[in-house]
């Protein structure tokens, strides 16, 4: 009771604010909860099963598989599930204290190759599934993870290059980074989808997904490079001097001394970049790919399920929100954790 008085009704202004917010919340939330939960339709299989006036979750439930797998053939969807499980396992490797970073990286590289072959198929009696059939959450994850994996080595080289003592290397890396950071992702994607075919030799047709991946990874690479550069700057000079005293050359200094420390410093920053990238992959729908948001957006125009924009967007928002929010909590946790162990 005293808590309420202190935090909500301590003064006239305070009381007024509390009442006003309470009123607005009640005005907005009560109808929303009523729409989304109380009078919503959950069971059924057709549009006509939704007749209570609330949200028509039947549509989301009926379409759920498509939202997750896109147009991936139903009989082959177990391959996507295997890849999903594999990714989660591979992700936990990084947070497993007993596994060395090198082993984790090796596992990752192997896992990614395996995933790519499993998803595309065409080998070992697995039917070939062409990439235009990929879609939904699966495509979103492929774009995020694939973009990151392609971007990461580039980003490390760019970050090192930008801090290089060789002026020409430094200038070209700086220009490259700032070029991608200065333009919107859409123009990069347009470039990748329209211009890239012109850049390549005639006849070297590149898959649309691969083109989008190249665009995403160039863009993400520039941002990652800046995050990694922040970590490199945080490494004290004595570390370089100690490495030099041991007679290590430039690449050995970087691989064994500087980068392991620098990357550990910037894990929260990397996670934030991953969150941003995960949200940004929605832009591929503008170049005509059906990622998670894209496939929901497309399904809203289905003649059988018209007028369900609110349901579709609320569902999409809920999924995106839970993933991004958990990642951001993870980033905060890692930050606090590393703060304890920092010297």
């Amino acid at each position, binding site marked *: 009771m005293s808590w309420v008085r202190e*935090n*909500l009704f*301590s003064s006239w202004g*305070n009381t007024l*604010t*509390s009442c006003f*917010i*309470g009123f607005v*919340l009640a005005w907005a939330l009560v109808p929303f909860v009523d729409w989304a939960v109380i009078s919503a339709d959950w069971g059924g299989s057709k549009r006509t099963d939704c007749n209570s006036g609330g949200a028509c979750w039947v549509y989301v439930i009926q379409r759920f598989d498509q939202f997750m797998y896109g147009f991936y053939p139903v009989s082959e969807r177990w391959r996507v599930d295997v890849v999903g499980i594999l990714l989660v396992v591979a992700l936990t490797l990084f947070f497993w204290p007993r596994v060395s970073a090198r082993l984790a990286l090796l596992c990752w590289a192997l896992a990614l190759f395996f995933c790519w072959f499993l998803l595309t198929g065409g080998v070992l009696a697995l039917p070939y599934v062409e990439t235009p059939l990929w879609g939904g959450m699966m495509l979103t994850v492929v774009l995020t993870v694939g973009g990151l994996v392609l971007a990461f080595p580039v980003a490390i080289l760019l970050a090192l290059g930008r801090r290089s*003592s*060789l*002026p*020409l*290397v430094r200038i*070209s890396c700086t220009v490259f980074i700032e*070029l991608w*950071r*200065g*333009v*919107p*992702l*859409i*123009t990069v994607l*347009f*470039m990748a989808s*329209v*211009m890239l*075919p*012109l*850049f*390549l*030799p*005639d006849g070297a047709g590149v898959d649309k997904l691969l083109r989008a991946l190249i665009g995403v990874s160039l863009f993400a690479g520039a941002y990652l490079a800046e995050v990694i550069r922040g970590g490199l700057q945080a490494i004290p000079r004595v570390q370089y001097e100690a490495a030099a005293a041991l007679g290590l050359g430039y690449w050995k200094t970087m691989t064994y001394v500087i980068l392991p420390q620098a990357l550990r410093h910037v894990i929260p920053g990397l996670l934030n970049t991953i*969150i941003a990238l995960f*949200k*940004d992959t*929605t*832009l591929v*729908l*503008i170049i005509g790919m059906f990622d998670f*948001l894209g496939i929901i*957006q497309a399904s*809203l125009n289905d003649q059988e399920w018209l007028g369900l*924009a*609110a349901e579709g*967007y609320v569902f*999409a*928002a809920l999924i*995106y*929100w839970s993933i*991004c*929010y958990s990642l*951001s909590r993870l980033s905060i946790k890692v930050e606090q954790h590393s703060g304890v162990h920092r010297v």
Partner: protein
Amino acid sequence: MGCITHRLYGSFLDKNLWQSVRHTAIFWQLVAVAVIAAGGMWLFGNILDNLDNRGIASGFSFLKSTAGFGISTSLIDFTEASSIGRAFWVGLLNTLMVSAIGVVLATILGFAVGIARFSNNWLLARLAMGFVETLRNIPLLLQIFFWYFAVLRSLPGPRQSYDIAGLAYLNNRGFYIPKLEFFDGSGWSVVGIVILAVAAFCLRRHRVVPRISVVLAVLILVFLLVSASVSVPALKGFNFTGGSVLSPEFVALVIALSSYTAAFIAEIVRAGIQSVPRGQIEAADALALSAKDRMRFVVIPQALRVIVPLLTNQYLNLTKNSSLAAAIAFPDLVSVFAGTALNITGQAIEIIGITMAVYLTISLLIAFAMNAFNRATAMRGLSTG
């Protein structure tokens, strides 16, 4: 003897060592340049081949050709007979307009929410936190779609519009707002108003002439009264006449952009306020400043030094994010130029090149302006926190 040997040998070694280090450096840089140049040549050669094969003429003459398409929202006159070059300017001006309005709204909202997180009202602080955590973690494109398709396009038609105090109307065709209409030949009074407004802004802290800003405000009002009238939208038949209309695309884009960016700005403001040392707040309390004055005169000016450089990034992001307009067909630069014009002319390289160059220029200009502002605010007061 030993000394001389050492000196000779040492200087010889030093020189050699220095030269070898320098030569290695030059060597690696040349390698880097050679790799970049070779890659560039290869790509360029491919482009020439491809353009040749496809029969696409390169060059910028397409900018003078007739557009052949209309644009719904335009700050300058544009018809189907106008040139593609003019369509470029229409798109650029729309991008700049959306960004400018978005930046202003996002800043106001972001500061309000950021400061509200420190409110001693629990409900308000939580609400501010909820705002930030919700908007930050949902893709901007989804938010734009939500506002456009689920909210604005689902509004009732003109006859059942939402009436806002009889001055503005909201329906599925857009947001109808009152408009200032200047009488013919009132150009000079517009100039006068602008001069007065600038004077009012410059003299707002002037203490020699008392109430100078009030005088100027009254003068501006008088100028407005003699030179312009307000046109209020009114329902005539099936649609509204008078006033001006903001298209649903524009409203959705501005709401989504500014609230999304505001969530990030609020976090920056919070970090800035938290960076002000506790001693400063205690000192303000010791001077018996009220909570409002403490915020306004002690905390915010010092927090600004942390906030402004970070704000630059958000303004840049907002400007770049305004390109998502293409998804709901608001005619911004990307939508009109890199979308429609590209499809019509097929000049991919030139058009994407120009579009990217424009965004790069805008980014550099904003960064430059904000750095200048940063220097100005950093100089005032203490140099170290």
